[in-house]
């Protein structure tokens, strides 16, 4: 007999009370069943988050709004100051998690639970990163689910997002070094002749391991204040360590706050730098996603 490596959460009668009421408001039994099971999934996940000490706000979540749940297939749960977590359910025997069109954006992730026949408990099955989902993703196979613990890493990443406006006030975290230090002795591109009153340039070393190789690149970010509302950004990537070239195939993407990739660049065999330029408005958030050999790293920013 082996130790069980999954977690079940008992559903409280109150979860069924909510589910019954919400289902009875719907246009037909099929929609009612969808709402009933979505409600159980959300309540189960909310209980789990309470165990672990992650705050959630069910009352302001769309699935708790009468008009939204009548219209959409939603099982969202707001995590204050973090984002919206979608709770998708699987029924016994189902091999893929359906992602409704209305839940393919604006999510920090998807926690997947399995409902058993008696509907007395939910079993946590896995996590789907928003990077696995785009507007055309109808479903994710259960073989592609990540461990539930990846939710906590996602929360940490989102909470650690870097407010780039602080750079304009000369506030920096230690990992983002002056460009003269981090790129010492290297040829840099388009970084000279800038107005230091409105422009800040900093760089950071990014390390990871793929295909049994230690990899390293240097990210350089130049920000220029255009106005109080807009900031121009120039993102560059250089080889790290002793490499002369970027890893071939290395992809860098800018992901907007709706989790949609809006621009990308990919390193070819002998590229020694790549660059992306874009503008952000005040209050906007974005991610820099780096991918190589199936390994993906994400840095979170706000303006």
């Amino acid at each position, binding site marked *: 007999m082996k*130790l069980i490596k999954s977690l079940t959460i008992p559903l409280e009668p109150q979860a069924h*009370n909510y589910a019954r009421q919400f289902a009875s*408001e719907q246009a*037909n*039994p099929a929609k009612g069943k969808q709402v009933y099971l979505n409600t159980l999934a959300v309540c189960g996940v909310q209980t789990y988050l309470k165990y*672990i000490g992650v705050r959630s706000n069910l009352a302001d979540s769309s699935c708790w709004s009468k008009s939204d749940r009548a219209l959409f297939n939603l099982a969202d749960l707001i995590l204050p100051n973090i984002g919206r977590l979608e709770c998708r359910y699987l029924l016994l025997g189902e091999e893929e998690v359906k992602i409704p069109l209305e839940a393919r954006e604006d999510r920090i992730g998807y926690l997947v639970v399995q409902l058993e026949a008696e509907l007395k408990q939910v079993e946590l099955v896995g996590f789907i990163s928003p990077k696995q989902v785009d507007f055309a993703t*109808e479903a994710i196979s259960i073989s592609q689910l990540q461990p*539930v613990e990846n939710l906590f890493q996602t929360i940490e990443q989102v909470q650690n997002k870097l407010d780039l406006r602080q750079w304009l006030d000369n506030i920096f975290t230690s990992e983002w070094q002056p460009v003269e230090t981090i790129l010492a002795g290297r040829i840099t591109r388009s970084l000279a002749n800038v107005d230091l009153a409105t422009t800040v340039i900093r760089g950071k070393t990014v390390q990871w391991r793929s295909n049994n190789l230690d990899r390293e690149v240097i990210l350089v970010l130049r920000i220029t204040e255009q106005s109080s509302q807009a900031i121009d950004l120039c993102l560059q990537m250089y080889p790290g360590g002793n490499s002369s070239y970027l890893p071939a195939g290395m992809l860098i993407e800018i992901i907007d706050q709706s989790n949609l990739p809006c621009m990308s660049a990919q390193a070819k065999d002998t590229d020694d730098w790549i660059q992306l330029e874009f503008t952000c408005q005040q209050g906007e958030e974005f991610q820099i996603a780096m991918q190589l050999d199936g390994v993906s790293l994400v840095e979170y920013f706000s303006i």
Partner: protein
Amino acid sequence: MEQELESELIKVIAECRQENLTKRRTSLNRLLMLIQQLPGIYRVSHQDYPEAYNRTLIWVCKNISNFKATTESVAKSLVIWINGYLKWRVRDLYVADNSYDPNRIYPNAKEDLDLIANIADPQISLSLLDTQIAQMQAEKSETIGKAIANHIEQDIDKNLTETFIRKHPQCNCHCLALRLLLAQPPQKISQIARELEVNNQTLYSHWKQKCLPLLQSISQSITHETN
């Protein structure tokens, strides 16, 4: 298995004491998996037992750093420690005027649960769900869901029909709402785009930027009227 459980518990409980929040949550997740396999956790057949059990696990996760083994077996000590709290929470269930969770969230601050919500029905199950929901819906003369679906289907003021992608009047919010929201199962964006000879991304952007706000405003005004 007993020995494996014992050594795993010692390791995981130590890891639950670490400072890094992400690592601690990961360890708590593992601890919870182990707790549900512990023999001897107190159980009763009260229908609200899950509430007492869940409240206990919240307490366990918060206080695990205070746990000290009181017998030679960490597993047995943990069961004693957990049951010590759980039995009190179960006792709370039998207190007549128990207001168990004063922070319980109701569906909407303005609307309390209606009568149907207060009829406890422990007999519900997946196989009976369709029938039970059909009965509940039949008891209501007009549901909010029906009112919204009717409004979308009829589109009397043509608001939905007249909101379309430039040069593609057939690709309008009425047609998209019928296919993407009301159809069970909903049709795929790619399938509709192919049929209507529109680019996938263009169709999705139109749906998101034009149709969704329109539909939400219709739904909200119907909900408001019926409240």
